[in-house]
């Protein structure tokens, strides 16, 4: 007989997309042979500041689970008052708890495992979606009067790819361009990529200008168009590709950051592309330094790969092992993407 279980998590203050993604992961986990059970109830912990997000989460959970589980809410004191009195949480046998909320919330759960007398003789599961996006740490706690036995399981992440659009939307970013899926690169652009890899940056830029009858400034823009088309033709590596992404700060009208391309790989990592079609080393160096900063999104930085797209002749001047920013021409982009997927 399938076991009925309750999913438990803390409503987030920010980062609703991440929590929602983790909740989806746990819902998928309910079907795992090692966990196999049916989700019939959900318990969401919240405080005053996270109550609204708790309601949002409840609505989303109901959309995700066709059986419409019974969603319960449990109010906790706010963070300033959380340790004024001992808190006994209404955890139950067979609950599956998502490691969510703050460090203090996690501490509260672990404290309850030791002290909540209602839980003696019970078992609970705590799931930690690891930030590497590859696996889940699953801890099964068997509670007795004076002992806690912990069984550990390592499960493959069943749902590693987050929605990039969702991550960007939550960060207040505006997407300027959606790259379409394309199976092939046009004959003309393919030829351009090939020629570009065979010539110096200066010579190829001249060729581009004469072929398309454009200025130096337009030559850089044309290369960005070719780069975009090339990425579209490699869509099998990606789930989403967006261009001209504008970030703003809070409710300030000033757009403080614009990025050329952000793409979600099929393994759930993000590539942060910057196009720099300049023949000045100083421009590339400055851009490399700039990309060392964090993107203003709620996503593990270790899973964001930085790539500068430039002329192949310029890229050759930089060692691949130098720093954490990859500098590449278009011709070798495909093999570089494979590296990003395989390194996991």
């Amino acid at each position, binding site marked *: 007989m399938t076991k009925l279980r309750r999913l438990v998590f803390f409503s987030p203050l920010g980062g609703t997309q991440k929590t929602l993604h983790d909740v989806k992961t746990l819902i998928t986990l309910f079907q795992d042979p090692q966990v196999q059970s049916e989700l019939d109830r959900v318990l969401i912990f919240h405080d005053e500041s996270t109550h609204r997000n708790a309601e949002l989460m409840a609505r989303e959970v109901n959309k995700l689970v066709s059986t419409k589980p019974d969603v319960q809410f449990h109010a906790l004191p706010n963070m300033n008052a959380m*340790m004024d009195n001992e808190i006994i949480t209404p955890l139950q046998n067979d609950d599956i708890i998502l*490691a969510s909320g703050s460090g*203090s919330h996690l501490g509260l759960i672990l404290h309850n495992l030791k002290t909540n007398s209602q839980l003696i003789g019970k078992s609970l599961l705590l799931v930690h979606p690891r930030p590497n996006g590859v696996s889940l740490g699953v801890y099964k706690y068997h509670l007795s009067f004076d002992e806690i036995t912990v069984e550990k399981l390592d499960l493959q992440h069943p749902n590693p790819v987050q929605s990039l659009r969702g991550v960007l939307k939550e960060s207040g970013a505006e997407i300027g361009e959606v790259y379409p899926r394309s199976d092939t690169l046009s004959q003309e652009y393919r030829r351009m990529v090939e020629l570009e890899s065979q010539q110096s940056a200066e010579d190829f830029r001249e060729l581009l200008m004469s072929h398309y009858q454009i200025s130096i400034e337009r030559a850089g823009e044309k290369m960005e168009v070719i780069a975009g088309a090339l990425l579209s033709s490699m869509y099998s590596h990606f789930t989403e590709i967006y261009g001209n992404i504008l970030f703003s700060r809070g409710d300030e009208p000033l757009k403080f950051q614009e990025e050329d391309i952000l793409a979600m790989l099929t393994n759930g990592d993000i590539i942060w592309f910057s196009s720099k079609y300049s023949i000045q080393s100083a421009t590339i*160096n400055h851009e490399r330094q700039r990309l060392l900063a964090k993107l*203003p999104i709620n996503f593990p930085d270790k899973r964001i790969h930085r790539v500068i797209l430039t002329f192949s002749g310029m890229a050759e001047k930089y060692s691949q092992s130098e720093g954490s920013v990859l500098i590449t021409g278009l011709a070798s982009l495909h093999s570089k993407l494979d590296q990003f997927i395989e390194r996991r």
Partner: protein
Amino acid sequence: MVQKTLVFANGISFGNTCQIIQTAMASNLFSAAKILSSPETRGINSHLVSTLAANNTDFSLQSIPLNDFINNPADFLSTSDELNFLIGPSTVEYQLETFAALCAINPPRMWSVFEKRTKSGISTRELRSFDVKDSVALVEISSDEIHKMLPSPVSSLLREHGIQWKGSTSRFNYHINFHSMKGRTPHTQRKWEQKQYAIINQLREHLGIHGLTITHSPLPNHWQKQNGTLRRLSARQIREVSK
């Protein structure tokens, strides 16, 4: 004799680790502390333990490689020990692994660094047990003390960049002053911005993201107009102050 042992996996934030250990030593709540070191914190923890243990022979202080502890907690703890686990620093995974290892000896009493925040900032910081039976204010460490405890290369780095220690928050602060760039050419300004970035990254490597605050003087008009790099990239990470 029953050892009252505080166990925690620490992060890179040097000041925070120092403050927790100093507090544990000064209180009568613990007789021992075990810091679980990751590859990133091993060096700094060894330095810290050798510095602090020399000043207090009544308190047992040890730095243990986290993986060794997780695999064989009985090598480092006795079943007669009263175990206290401080949650908060370090990663969620390390904390869950540490909790599991401690449960193999004795389920630990849980602790946290409890902060009360007001609109103007943090008002109190305490080491408090989740059963709320014990609480102790975190000791404030002076600038002189923290510099004595820092490894000399880090101390030199901080002196070189004029990094200030703020005892009340237990964090270091790096202040970026735009005034020095007044009247300089855009090329010089850009070089200077790049240098500031390199400094911030280097400091974060040594002090941890949570162990370092960054402030800057009001942005000159030309920086805002040019949508300068610091403004674009650090807007969410640094705070403007009026000096």
